């Protein structure tokens, strides 16, 4: 094999994290709150894959469409039952964030209960598992390596097309920019919100369904991954979908590669400190440039030296400045 397994692992993880970070950023754009329950949708996806492979005996890939729809539905239900009601009551950002934390606790407990129910009903051990055996192989590579990257690129391209070319996407962007003005123009904000919550929940659950095909999964995996998601989203600037793509890739690759290199150089004990890498990103971004890559880009465009560097690379054209 030409690609070492560890690079494949980091690429798979990075593509999953990218999908999750995009969703997290979209939620932040439309609802203006960090959704702490976002990682838990991925936890639901993990158990969709588990149910399809271990209980039904099918390929976990067949569960992906169901995971997308299920995640979307859960997300929409949360929006209608909790977020929308609280927004109607005049809840601020802090109250809404606390409510998403409560949803995260509730959903994680629900996943745990489901895992115990599976044990009681089918006698399978659903608390710590890996579904690599259910994967297929393409030209010597594990299927998930190709599938995760293709799915992520597909999602990013479709999302880009939708946000820039379709009426729905433009309505979404205008709703994120100024909901009141958008509603004056005749956009049904409620429908747009429901659509965007469905999209983010579905993407998160889809990303979650891919996790157990390469990584060891437990009921709390979804709750643990939220730090990495937030690091990726924050690195991208928190309010920029394209930034979230870069942020997700950077945090995902560095989380696995830095741990591996650290283990080779310093010893096995580095592995235990892996959760600190996304936290390091979080704190570093907040200390250096709280608006992430987006803020850095704007700062570069504003300064003369930054402009000359960007022109020499070819990233900035004359007409963009005008």
């Amino acid at each position, binding site marked *: 094999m030409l690609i070492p397994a560890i690079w494949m692992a980091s690429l798979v993880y990075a593509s999953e994290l990218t999908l999750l970070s995009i969703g997290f950023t979209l939620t932040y754009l439309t609802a203006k*709150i*960090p959704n*702490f329950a976002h990682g838990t949708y991925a936890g639901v996806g993990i158990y969709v894959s588990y149910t399809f492979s271990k209980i039904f005996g099918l390929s976990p890939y067949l569960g992906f469409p169901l995971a997308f729809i299920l995640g979307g539905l859960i997300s929409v239900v949360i929006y209608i039952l*909790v977020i929308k*009601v*609280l927004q109607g*009551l005049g*809840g601020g*950002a*802090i*109250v809404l*964030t*606390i*409510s998403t*934390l*409560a*949803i*995260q*606790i*509730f*959903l*994680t*407990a*629900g996943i*745990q*209960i489901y895992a*115990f*129910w599976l044990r*009681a009903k089918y006698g399978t051990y659903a608390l710590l598992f890996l579904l690599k055996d259910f994967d297929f192989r393409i030209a010597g590579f594990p299927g998930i390596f190709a599938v995760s990257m293709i799915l992520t690129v597909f999602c990013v391209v479709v999302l880009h097309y939708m946000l820039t070319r379709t009426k729905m996407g433009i309505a979404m962007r205008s709703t994120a920019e100024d909901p009141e003005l958008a509603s004056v123009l005749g956009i049904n904000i409620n429908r747009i919100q429901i659509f965007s919550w469905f999209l983010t929940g579905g993407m998160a659950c889809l990303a979650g369904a891919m996790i157990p095909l390469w990584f060891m999964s437990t009921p709390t995996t979804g709750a643990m991954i939220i*730090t990495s998601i*937030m690091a990726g989203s*924050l690195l991208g600037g928190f309010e920029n979908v394209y930034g979230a793509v870069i942020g997700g890739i950077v945090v995902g690759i560095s989380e696995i590669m830095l741990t591996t290199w650290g283990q080779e150089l310093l010893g096995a*004990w580095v592995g*235990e*400190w892996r*959760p*600190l890498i*996304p*936290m390091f990103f*979080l*704190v570093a971004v*907040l*200390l250096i440039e*709280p608006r992430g890559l987006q803020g850095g880009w704007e700062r570069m465009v504003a300064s003369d030296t930054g402009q000359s560097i960007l022109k020499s690379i070819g990233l900035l054209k004359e007409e963009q400045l005008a």
Partner: protein
Amino acid sequence: MMQQVALGLLTSSVAVEGTSRLIVDIAMYFGLFLIVAMALNFQYGNAGIPNMGCAVQVIMGGFTVSAITTRLILTLVGNAGVELLPWASDYDWVYNNPANVATTNTWLSTEPVFGMSMLLFTLAVALILGAIIGWIIALPAIRLRATYLMIVLITMADASQIVGRNVTWISGGTLGLFIPDIFKWYSGDRTIVMAIITLLVGLISFFIFRTMLNSPYGRLMRSIRENEITVGSVGKNVVGIRRNILMFASGITALSGSLLAFYFSYVVEANYQRALWTYWPWLMLILGGPGNNAGTFLGCALIIAVRRIIIVQKWFLQEVFFFPVAYFEQVLLGILLIAVIMFRPNGLIPEKLLYIPGVNYTMMVQEEVEVDWRGTTTVQRGFSSGIKGIFNVLGGKKSKEEKE
């Protein structure tokens, strides 16, 4: 009757069991969470700082006991001439810990003054270290928007647990560390003394917070919560004040971690989980009423009583569920949190106006204070308006509507 029970509890030389055990347990946890919830009320309810990192400060208190107090006790006991196994290296520190603690406990059984001074020393160090942690937390986060602050603090709570798990010399890693029993001189059950001390510390911190909130500084805090730009425009250093509040509250919160360590005589990072030490205090605060001391007190008492009874009686509940009761507890936490936010956003006891000595603020506001920017408005003060105010209070909204 109650006196006899209390005396019986204090003087009995056997371990408490059954219902008395439950009462001691509830008292202990009530004291601990009263400290955390009041500090949270101080920060969020009054100054508007959403501190989601209470667990960091609590774990700091626990680490103080295991890393500093235990070392100090072992050094002092060794200097007093007691033969101890080596404890300098990381391996010896964990491996010889139970034997060393047992030897130390026999020595401590005749030294009440030494034990109590160690308790006071620990509380002082925990206060200082907690304040330092508050300062460190404030460094990256205090200038940020509230949501960013919450994200950073939640991740810091996880980071502190990872540190505790992997740095052996702090709290013995995953194995945990035994703590010398500073109440060995007491013939009865240690936990009763510990519960009484914790309750005392909890009540003292309750009154400290209450006094601070009713002082000019408390009014400054509330004004920062309402509009920090206005406060900044009249020359107050908003960032500095918020950092001071975070440091003070962090120091007090760290006390509860130390007290918990002495209660168990054991420190392990798993005791200081984020869910237990951050989300439950938030539920107490929101249930009782953010910004109201009495409300926080009530919320704390209610939640602790219900939760301890569920935990103690869990074998009866376990027969009903096929999954561990711990997850039922989490479901309950999630649902309660959302339900309270939705249906009682102001809590059981809503926020009240602050007490200002010399000014009968409550009655003043019960009078219709017509702030009319166009002309002169007479705001009635004094005795007669006070009487009217009382009638307004008794009459409720009706009298106001009639006047209109």
